[in-house]
């Protein structure tokens, strides 16, 4: 299943992030503001720059940045939330 990106949906669409592509500064910043797998997004205004709603905040970003955000429509990922469910994480403490 190939993911579409943010630029491909009309205003008003509810979306779920599958991942942000890349490891550059912009991709990192997008993840740091909460665009991580499972996050819910809504396209408020399409275009470049576009406006998206993420939680209770709104961001505007350009097409170039928006293309990094791979998403699926909200209906098609009913079960995907499980991927990110609050299981106790197994990792070790770094500090």
């Amino acid at each position, binding site marked *: 299943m190939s993911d579409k990106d943010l630029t491909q949906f009309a205003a008003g669409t509810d979306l779920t992030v599958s991942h942000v592509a890349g*490891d550059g500064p*912009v991709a990192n910043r997008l993840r740091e503001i*909460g665009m991580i797998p499972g996050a819910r997004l809504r396209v408020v205004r399409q275009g470049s720059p576009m406006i998206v709603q993420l939680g209770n905040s709104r961001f505007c970003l*350009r097409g170039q940045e928006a293309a990094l955000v791979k998403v699926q429509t909200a209906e098609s990922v009913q079960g995907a939330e499980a991927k990110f469910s609050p299981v106790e994480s197994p990792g070790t403490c*770094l*500090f």
Partner: protein
Amino acid sequence: MSKFVAVVGNPNVGKTTLFNSLTGLALVTANYPGVTVERKVGRMQLEGEPVYLIDLPGTYSLSARSPDEMIVADVLLSQQKGEEPVDLILAVVDASNLERNLYLVTQLLELGKPLLIALNMCDLAERHGVAIDYAQLEQVLGAPVVPVCAHKRVGIDALRASLQNLLQGQTAAPKPLVTFSEQFCESVRDLHAELNQKQAVIGRRVSLFEALRVLADRGGYAEQRLVDALGEPFRDKLNDYRLRAAQDGAVAAEESITRFKTIRRILDRCVRVSPKRQDMFSERLDSFLTHPILGLVFFVLVMSIMFQSIYNAAAPVVAWIDAGLSLLVQGIDNVLPQGVLRSLLVDGCIAGVGSVLAFLPQIVVLTLFIALLEDCGYMARAAFLMDKFLFRCGLSGHSFIPLLSSFACAIPGIMATRTISDRRDRFVTILVAPLISCSARLPVYSVMIAAFVPNTPVLGGFVRLQGLTLLLMYALGILLAAPMAWLFKKTILPGAPPPFLLELPSYKLPQMRTVVFKVYRQGKEFLKRAGTLIFALTVVTWALAYFPPLSSNVEAVYENQRREIEQTFPDGDEREVRLAQLERDESRARLENSFLGRAGRSLAFLFKPLGWDWRIGVATLSSFPAREVVVATLGIIFNIENPEDESNEGLVSALRQAKRPDGSPLFTVSVALSLMVFFALCCQCGGTLIIIQRETNSWRWPAFTFAYMTALAYIGAFVVFRIGNWFENMAPH
């Protein structure tokens, strides 16, 4: 022992507002992400002990990529040279956006410093249907949590009490919450160990947290600093560490996803979101204000109203100030005899500094508009709308706020470029910011427009010609800044357009306190300049225009003529008129003979192509350190020329009456326009050049800015004068 507290948080969460409530110090706040760009320190008293609060720029995480993010990282990691280490971190968190805000908090928990969390915007959280179990959150995070509402000053006392508690006791730092995968931790620890072996070369100890940043932020600030110390080959070594830490070396992705997993767990335990009522108000407004056509129409409308008001709303106050100054002049005339002292006071101080002061009302109106628009949340929308336009010039919406601030003054505008992460985009913005018409140009425009542009209604009576001319002068700066930015981006600072990612805050009613403080600060700044720099320059200019006196031979000639008139015309109007004329001639001769006059006349050839005579040229030259001075110099020159100007309408009428040697008026509309255009485009501001030097760390950039703007100004003034002159010659008299 005084204590230091760093105030940290995401952009636009109310850090500065909280800082102000705690310290009582008025710092500028705005409903625009990224307004605080410089570290500011305020003092508060806790049980008689001074505690210093450091207000830091907003940041989403501690991975530093722009200069303002570096400031945050440096202060928190105590790497600012010669600076006290931070005793406590006060994290300001937006309760209505907890998930995103806690990301930074999980990083702060790893710094090994005591942490206090101020949960701000509780009113907004409630409105969004977010119910937070504070006690539970405090327990999970392991750091005290105090709910506050900074702009209504709710919870400030509780926050002070917590601060006091933490600063007094031997508070242990809270425990980090996030756990990473085995290989991730190992890789970071190994890097940390290696860095500590190289401690001697690096020159300091590197903390584990810094090692994490070096690894995670590819191409970031922490990496760059290490590579600077250890040499370029170290970059490859870092990549090996990265490959070990995470799949495909995607350390940053791994970090952020792991952190958010932990945050989700925390939120599940502490927060209940009832079926949320959306911010319908902001949504509706946005569907109109960010509309590609309607939004732009509204934007232009707002800007037109702003410039119209600068002229019309401020006009009565300006008139009062002028009237007050005239009274003062009459008072001095009655008390002091003719002579040097009177000339210094009347022609120098009042005509000079006074004419600059008269513009305070207009500057207040301009700042008031900008402050209101910023605080209600509209500015971020304007940045959004302008991004398309700025993109064409190779910049982004991030350059909008620095450029807009430059309407008040280029200095804060240039400082605001620190939020731009890309160096080249930042420099291009710095280079064009002084082209934006700042408030110091307003006096020049005002005088010229009031004197030479008729106030006839145009465009169906919607606007008047004077307001429209002013708007055009302001537009000129923007219209030239765009192609210049494009040109710089193509030539000396080449690069792709920068990314654009900006948060749009919710709309809200502007906070009166915030707005008033901002206007007050700007006004105070203006008055301070008028009282110091402008005053000093004015006195110097006056002296240059007053000395040396005419030689006794020449004086004698005028004295003879005066006696002759008195004898020929025993009394009556004829005698008065002739005496006045003689006095004007003598004054003009005195001015031409002065140091200023001599210099001006020898440079007259420079100004001639622009339609100026030596007097305008001298006024312009004298205003290179600070452009407002031109109004003062014009005041001095034309006041000295017209000592008996009984009408006392001040500078405007003096300029209208100014004549060329052949008796034709000195100023035509085209001369006035050419002067305005010159001032619109020239970099006549020492302060701006100094700040450019400071921000770019080189004298090359201010020198370049000065050179290109002066050239632009000269060419612009020349073209405008030629075209205007052609029209004037065409038109029947």
